[in-house]
């Protein structure tokens, strides 16, 4: 009986947390070697024509306050450690959105000596937004898909190829 009540309480708390998370996710943006093209499109999503804030998404300066890490660009050897450090500074649960062809696979920079490949070579990625660069509409669509999956509990496991960090044990909820 005690156990049941505990579970009920936990479920209610989880629902409240998910509700809050879906309605006001804070995002942090890191450029790990991008050409700026995706960065200016991400900035454009914040400005009046696209206005990502109507979904509650706010771009945040510190990784310690952020729920979503928006990554652009391929991972360069110099930026790799920083990318991992920023990811590890974020509180659980945390989600990664890779924006742009380079973040997906290295894009045009495949084979360049200082490029390690896409974001999923380093971090577990939850959502991919393709394009060179993706249109602001596509970036918003990617984020909204992520939030919807979070809302109805259909979030797939994050994709990792060669993770440099500990992968969250269960998607959405801390271990």
């Amino acid at each position, binding site marked *: 009986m005690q156990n049941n009540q505990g579970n009920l309480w936990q479920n209610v708390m989880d629902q409240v947390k998910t509700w809050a998370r879906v309605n006001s996710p804070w995002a*942090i943006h*890191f*450029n*790990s*070697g*991008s*050409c*700026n*093209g*995706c*960065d*200016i*499109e991400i*900035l*454009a999503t914040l*400005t*009046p*024509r696209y206005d990502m804030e109507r979904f509650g998404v706010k771009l945040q*300066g*510190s*990784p310690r306050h952020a729920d979503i890490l928006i990554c652009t*660009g*391929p991972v*360069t050897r*110099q*930026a790799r450690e*920083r990318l991992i450090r*920023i990811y590890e500074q974020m509180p659980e649960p945390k989600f990664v959105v890779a924006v742009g062809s380079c973040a997906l696979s290295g*894009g*045009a*920079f495949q*084979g*360049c*000596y*200082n*490029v390690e490949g896409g974001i999923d070579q380093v971090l577990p990625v939850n959502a991919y937004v393709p394009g*060179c*660069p993706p*249109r602001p509409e596509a970036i918003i669509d990617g984020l909204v898909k992520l939030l919807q999956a979070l809302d109805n509990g259909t979030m797939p496991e994050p994709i990792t190829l060669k993770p440099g960090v500990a992968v969250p044990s269960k998607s959405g909820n801390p271990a």
Partner: protein
Amino acid sequence: MQSKIDKFTIPIGPQHPALKEPGHFEFSVDGEIVTDASVRLGYVHRGIEKGTEGRNWVQSLYLLERICGICSHVHATAYCLGVEKLAGVEVPPRAQAIRVLVAELERVHSHMLWLGVAAHEAGFDTLFMYSWRDRETVMNLLEGITGNRVNYSANVLGGVKCDISAEQDEAIRQGVDFLEERTRHYLEVVTSDMMFLRRTRGVATTPKAQARELGLIGPTGRASGISHDVRVDAPYAAYDIYPVKLITATAGDLEARFIVRINELFESYRVIRQILDTLPEGELTVRMPRRIKEGETVSRVEAPRGELFYFIKSNGTDTPERIKVRTPTLPNMASVLVLAIGHQLADIPMILTGIDPCFSCNDRMVVVKDSGGDNRAMTWEALRQYGIEYYR
């Protein structure tokens, strides 16, 4: 009793709200006043110059275009002009005019982007939002002409891939009219808003002599009275048919940089209209050989941030032998470190944004080899011979 105050160092970056791109700065402060500054760059170094050596001439165009997403067209233009010069190909006048048209539209988008970001760093978010809203007009025009908002790939080797139809002509004219009216408003705002002027007037003042010493180029240098603009000094593409007026200021502070960039917008609008009025008829491309004749060339264009320099060497095959890129941010970056000293820490984001930095353009690799006290003066010819011997 006076205690010795230790130097306090504030690290900024590579991830920081004031930086849109990764770069690492360290500022030593005494209270709020910056006493020393250093920078570490290279977080977005990808190895593009080497990458071109493994790609053919056409593939390299698309790789080089992605050096910078903001000024991708000028990178492609510089590369195409150089390769066409090597191949001895004459590009049709209509293609050259469209190149200039897209370059000027790109300058409009870049300067408006900078205006917004600089206003944001000053805490003037209203201007940021307004200028980015209006910037969408020029993004629409670029998308209408080329099919993509950023990284448009308007250039191909031997010409351009997109034409200007009658509807596009009309749309560009309307867009430019709207932007000109808005730009007039922005000029009024940045020169009359007292709050904003407190952040810009007299901040990071660079007299002409110091600007020359620091090697400032582009609008940053022109704000200090350095009369240098590749479009005027060495007209390329169709700039000899559509001449540009050189815009300079003398004050050298951040306010002057705002005024120079905004006045350049008016100049761009004028050139865009002039091109539309007198767009020559004809072909868009000429046939380019797959293998480019052996030789080396230098190509210079005026990017929104200053002089962009390409060295291109061909060995007669279908891949480039060597491509060297010198982008305008690197010479300007040094000025940030010098100008920061003596300013309030709160002014640093403004000083950094004042040069319109572009880290992704910036992060080229240079190997500096310690000569071990062997300092020699060399003539250009001797240096060249030395270089050839060294890399043999």
